[in-house]
């Protein structure tokens, strides 16, 4: 609070950014670099204190905002081993892309939000951003249909433009009618645990060459053979993050709690040895906006724009969120700079933000994948149960020697496959694949 009261009598800000997560900080620093006066408000005690994510960030987006990040930012490990697993209770089929290319331009890496976000804020402050932590915006101030500032618990602050970066629960964008209530089907609940382990143990368990190399595992199937969910493991420097994301409407149909699924995942024979002897150091939970393309809210109104999770900008097919947040914050800031320079913060100018978003990968990816989750939910038994089982059964058949002629073994597999699936169901599955394919490639 003291941060703000000291500023009380100074002239207003050009832009107020609410929320100091990736999208907010990206917007703030972009504005400061253009010599705009920016106030960045955060309700938490310190940057990242309220933030939680899976664990991987992508360099393409960070590079645009913080070109020096690779040398200076507190990153944990660069992902060298990308593992994908299709799991059953006691079986799994895995594929791993392992990349050890030197100076690879587009890397993904793990980072701890509290350390990384702190670094980002420090960079923003160096560029002139005024950072106000421990400040809760209660309402937006709206006058004559224009958002003209924010109301905190102690004062009103005015600026021609407000950037709403208050995260997935975005009470502010709802308050001014930019979006409707979120429904359970539009979000996933993610729970995560962090286990402390020694660096060498992590290197050995994940087959990594050095302390700077990392691994990720993303899993389909068990414990999510009946409801839609995915599981993940990411390596930090001396800890492992392990979690699940579960579609909230699916969760409401079961009697298990989110952490029950996490426990089932942790006890899978693939996963259990990875965290053996690890000490639990944090348990966390967060919502992931999964509404996708169809649930993108109104991105702007007179005097305000919505960015990041608050704007539901998450590509859940590729597990991407922080990069969409960073870029959307950047694009909103670019728009704000133009609006300030031409002295017009009305919808007329701010609609440019929507145009920028539409031209970017963000909108295009969300559009490509707009129906995938619906299709998967509709054909859930196929995608989460039947095909994972068949895949594992096929590989089991392939690796097994049982004294029966291979020709007969494979023939039996094919007969079994056709018996366990009616032709109609197979056609439906096939059409779902075709529809997904067309959805991605036909504009």
């Amino acid at each position, binding site marked *: *609070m003291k941060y703000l009261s000291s500023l009380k009598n100074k002239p207003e800000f050009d832009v107020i950014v609410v929320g100091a997560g990736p999208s907010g900080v990206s917007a703030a620093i972009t504005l400061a670099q253009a010599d705009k006066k920016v106030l960045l408000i955060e*309700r*938490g*005690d*310190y940057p*990242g*204190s*309220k*933030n*939680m*994510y899976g664990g991987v960030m992508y360099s393409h987006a960070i590079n645009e905002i913080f070109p020096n990040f690779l040398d200076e930012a507190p990153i944990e490990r660069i992902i060298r081993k990308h593992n994908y697993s299709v799991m059953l209770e006691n079986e799994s089929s895995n594929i791993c892309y392992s990349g050890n290319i030197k100076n690879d331009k587009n890397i993904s890496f793990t980072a*701890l*939000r*509290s350390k990384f*976000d702190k670094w980002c804020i420090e960079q923003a402050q160096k560029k002139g951003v005024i950072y106000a932590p*421990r*400040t*809760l915006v209660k309402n937006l101030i709206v006058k004559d249909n224009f958002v003209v500032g924010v109301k905190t*618990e102690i004062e009103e602050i005015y600026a021609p433009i407000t950037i709403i970066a208050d995260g*997935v*629960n975005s*009470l502010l964008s709802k308050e001014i009618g930019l979006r409707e*209530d*979120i*429904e*359970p089907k539009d*979000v996933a*609940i993610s*729970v995560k*645990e*962090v286990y402390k382990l020694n660096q060498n143990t992590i290197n050995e368990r994940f087959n990594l060459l050095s302390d700077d190399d990392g691994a990720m595992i993303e899993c389909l199937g068990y414990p999510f053979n009946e409801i839609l969910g995915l599981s993940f493991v990411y390596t*930090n420097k001396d*800890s492992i*993050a392990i979690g699940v994301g579960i579609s*909230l409407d699916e*969760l*409401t149909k*079961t*009697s298990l*709690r*989110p*952490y029950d699924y996490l*426990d089932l995942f*942790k*006890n899978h024979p693939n996963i*259990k040895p990875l*965290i*053996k*002897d*690890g*000490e*639990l*150091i*944090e*348990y*966390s*939970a*967060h*919502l992931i906006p999964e509404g996708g393309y169809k649930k993108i809210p109104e991105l702007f109104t007179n005097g305000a724009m919505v960015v990041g999770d608050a704007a539901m900008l998450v590509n859940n097919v590729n597990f991407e969120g922080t990069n969409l947040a960073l870029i959307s914050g950047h694009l909103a800031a670019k728009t704000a700079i133009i609006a300030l320079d031409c002295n017009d913060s009305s919808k007329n100018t701010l609609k440019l933000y929507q145009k920028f978003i539409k031209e970017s990968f963000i909108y295009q990816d969300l559009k490509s994948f707009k129906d995938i989750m619906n299709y998967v939910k509709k054909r859930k038994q196929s995608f989460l149960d039947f095909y994972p089982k068949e895949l594992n059964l096929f590989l089991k058949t392939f690796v097994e020697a049982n004294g029966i002629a291979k020709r007969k073994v494979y023939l039996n597999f094919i007969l079994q496959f056709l018996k366990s699936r009616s032709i109609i169901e197979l056609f439906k599955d096939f059409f779902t694949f075709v529809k997904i394919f067309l959805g991605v490639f036909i504009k």
Partner: protein
Amino acid sequence: MNENINLPIETRLYKTKIINDEKSHLIVDNEICAKCKNPLCTIVCPANVYKFQDETKKVIMVNYENCLECGACKICCKHIKWNYPEVRYGVNYKFG
């Protein structure tokens, strides 16, 4: 130490730094709760904030001290008056 693996949720929450306000930032209306046929709040909450007081399953107790501020309860039940904790209170993730 792998008995660690299925710890009760209260023990896990003990690992997460949460600073508690004296009053709850989550308000339920027990008249509405008493009539609720599908108390989703007791299932979706990852921190067991919502619990029935007893077997009659009429009164919901709100253990707001456990709250991780995810918002899942608010999305599943429109009757919960959900707000962020006041500043200086609530969850403080060290790793996130």
